[in-house]
C-alpha cells in the first residue's frame, strides 16, 4: 500500500497500523465545541463554499462518545471549563484536540477575571489555529495537519503532556 512516508527517519509503521491510520485520517469525526464567533466560521467551513467534507471530516457528531477530534472554537471561561474537560474525558482514545481562534489558544484579548487563558491550561492541544476569527481555510489547514500527524505517526499532544 503506497502512502507518502515523509515522516521522521527511524519510524517504521507496520502495514496494519498504516492501513488503520489511513482509514482514520480520512474519516475524522469532529466534535465542534463552538461557543462564540469562531462557531460561525466553523459553520462556514462546513458550508458549501469551503466544504470541509472534501477532507473527510464531514460527519459532525454532537456526542463525545462518537467523535475523535475535539474542535474547540470560541472563548472558554471559568464557568464553561469544567464542561469542556468533562467532554474531553468522555471522548474515546485516540483523540485529538484542535484549538481554534485566539480565545481558545490563549484567552484572546480578554485578560480578565472570567476567561480561561487558553484551553491548554486544561487540555492537551495538538493543533492551534491563530486568528480572530480564523478563516475557514485555517480550519481546513488544521484538519490537514491532524491528518499529517496521523500519517507520520507523530506523538500526539496527549502523549507529550500527561494532563489528567
Amino acid at each position: 500500500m503506497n502512502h507518502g512516508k515523509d515522516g521522521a527517519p527511524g519510524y517504521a509503521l507496520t502495514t496494519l497500523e498504516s492501513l488503520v491510520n489511513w482509514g482514520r485520517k480520512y474519516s475524522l469525526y469532529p466534535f465542534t465545541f463552538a461557543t462564540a464567533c469562531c462557531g460561525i466560521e466553523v459553520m462556514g467551513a462546513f458550508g458549501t463554499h469551503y466544504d470541509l467534507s472534501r477532507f473527510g471530516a464531514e460527519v459532525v457528531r454532537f456526542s463525545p462518545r462518537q467523535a475523535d477530534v475535539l474542535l474547540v472554537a470560541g472563548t472558554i471561561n471559568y464557568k464553561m471549563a469544567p464542561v469542556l474537560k468533562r467532554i474531553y474525558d468522555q471522548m474515546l482514545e485516540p483523540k485529538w484536540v484542535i484549538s481554534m481562534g485566539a480565545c481558545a489558544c490563549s484567552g484572546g484579548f480578554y485578560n480578565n477575571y472570567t476567561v480561561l487563558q487558553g484551553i491548554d491550561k486544561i487540555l492537551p492541544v495538538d493543533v492551534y489555529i491563530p486568528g480572530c476569527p480564523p478563516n475557514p481555510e485555517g480550519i481546513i489547514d488544521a484538519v490537514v495537519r491532524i491528518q499529517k500527524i496521523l500519517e507520520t505517526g507523530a506523538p500526539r499532544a496527549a502523549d507529550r503532556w500527561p494532563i489528567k
Partner: protein
Amino acid sequence: MAEPFHIARAGEAPDLQAEPMLLNIGPSHPATHATLRFHAKLDGETILDLEPEFGYLHRGFEKESEASTWTQVIPYTDRLNYVSPLMNNVGYAMAVEKLCGIEITERCKYIRVIISELSRIIDHMVCIGTNMVDLGALTNFWYFWKPREEVYKLIEELCGQRLTTAYTRIGGVMADLPEGWTDRLLAVCRGVIPDSIADVNALLTKNRIFIERTMGIGPVTAKDAIALGFTGPCLRAAGVPFDLRKDQPYLVYDRFDFDVPVGEAGDTCDRYMVRMEEMRQSLRIIEQAVAQLPGGPVNIDDPRFVLPPKAAVYENIEALMNHFKHIMEGIKVPAGEVYSATEAANGELGFYIVSKGGGGPYKIKVRPPCFPLFQGIPHLVKGQMIADLIAVLGSVNIIAGELDR
C-alpha cells in the same frame, strides 16, 4: 402534586403516576447554539417548568471596556452579536457621538444605514437557517449560507475582515467605500440574496411539516410581550408595531420608504414570517440608500476626534502629536452619561455610557436584545413539549455573545 411511583398490588390497576423528571438540557448541546442551559421539569415530554441558565460565554465586556480607550472598545463590541457585528459597531459609535455632541457627515450616515441593513439580512439568515436545522430542514441552512459568503466577500473588501469588522470609528468610519463596491453590493442584493429568500420560501412557507411544527408553538400575547420587555421581531410577531427605525428614527431612516412587518399570534411561525419579510424590506432600504448616497468626506473634520491624514502625520509635527495623543491616550470625551438605542436585528440594542471625561469610558452597559427574550422563554413554552422548546429557542434567536457579554 404528583405522587411517587406506586407499586401495584395484586388486583389493583397499575398506577403510573410518577414524579416529574428533571432533565438538564446542557450547556454543550447542538440545538442550544452552545452555551445555553435549561433545567427542565418534565412530565413525559411535556414541560412543566423550565429554568434557563446562561453565563457560559461571559467574557467581561464591561470590565475590559473600563480598562480601554474609547476606540479600543470597538473590537469588543464586534463580538457582542457576532452574526451582525457591523450593527454593534454602529450602535456604539452613535452612543459616543451623542455624548460628544458631534454630527457625522451625510455620506457616513448613509454608509452606516447600508451596513446596518446588510447585517440585519445576514443575521436573519443565520437565525432562520439554524432554526430550521434544529427542526430537521438542513437544506435551508445551505441555501442561506451561500449569500452570506457573498456578503462576507463584500465586507472583507470594505474593512479587511469577514466577521469581526471594527469598521466604525468615533466621528466616522475606518475608510471610505472602495471603488465599485456599491455596484457589487447591488449585484448581490438583486441576485443571490433574493434568490435564496425565494428558495427558502418555496421550501418552507407552504410546507405541511413546517406549519405543523411551528404554528401555535410558543405563542405570546402582546401584553405579556411588553411586560416581559421583548423588543424586535419577537415583539412584532406578537402584534406590536414597535420599530425604533420608525418610532425614534436615527441616522437617515426617516428618508426611506419601507414597511414594518407585524404578526398576529406571536408564535414561531409568525417570527419566521416577520424575519423573512424584514429581509425583503432591508433590501428595499439598501436600494434606496445606494441611490441616494451623497459624495463628500466620510469622517468629520475635527482633530479632537478623528485621526489626522497619514501624509500630514509624516510631514507635520502637530499632526504627529495629535496622532500620538489619539492612540496613546484616547480621544477626550466630555463627562456625562448617555443612553443610545438602535434597532438591531434582534431588538433594541442599547448602550448606556458613563464618562468622566477621560480617554476611556467609566462604564459601558450594553442592553442586549436577547436578555429579556431568554428570560421570557419559560413563559413561551410552559405546557408544550421539548421539541417545541427547541423550535422556540431557535426562532427567538439567542446569541450568547450578546446575552452574556
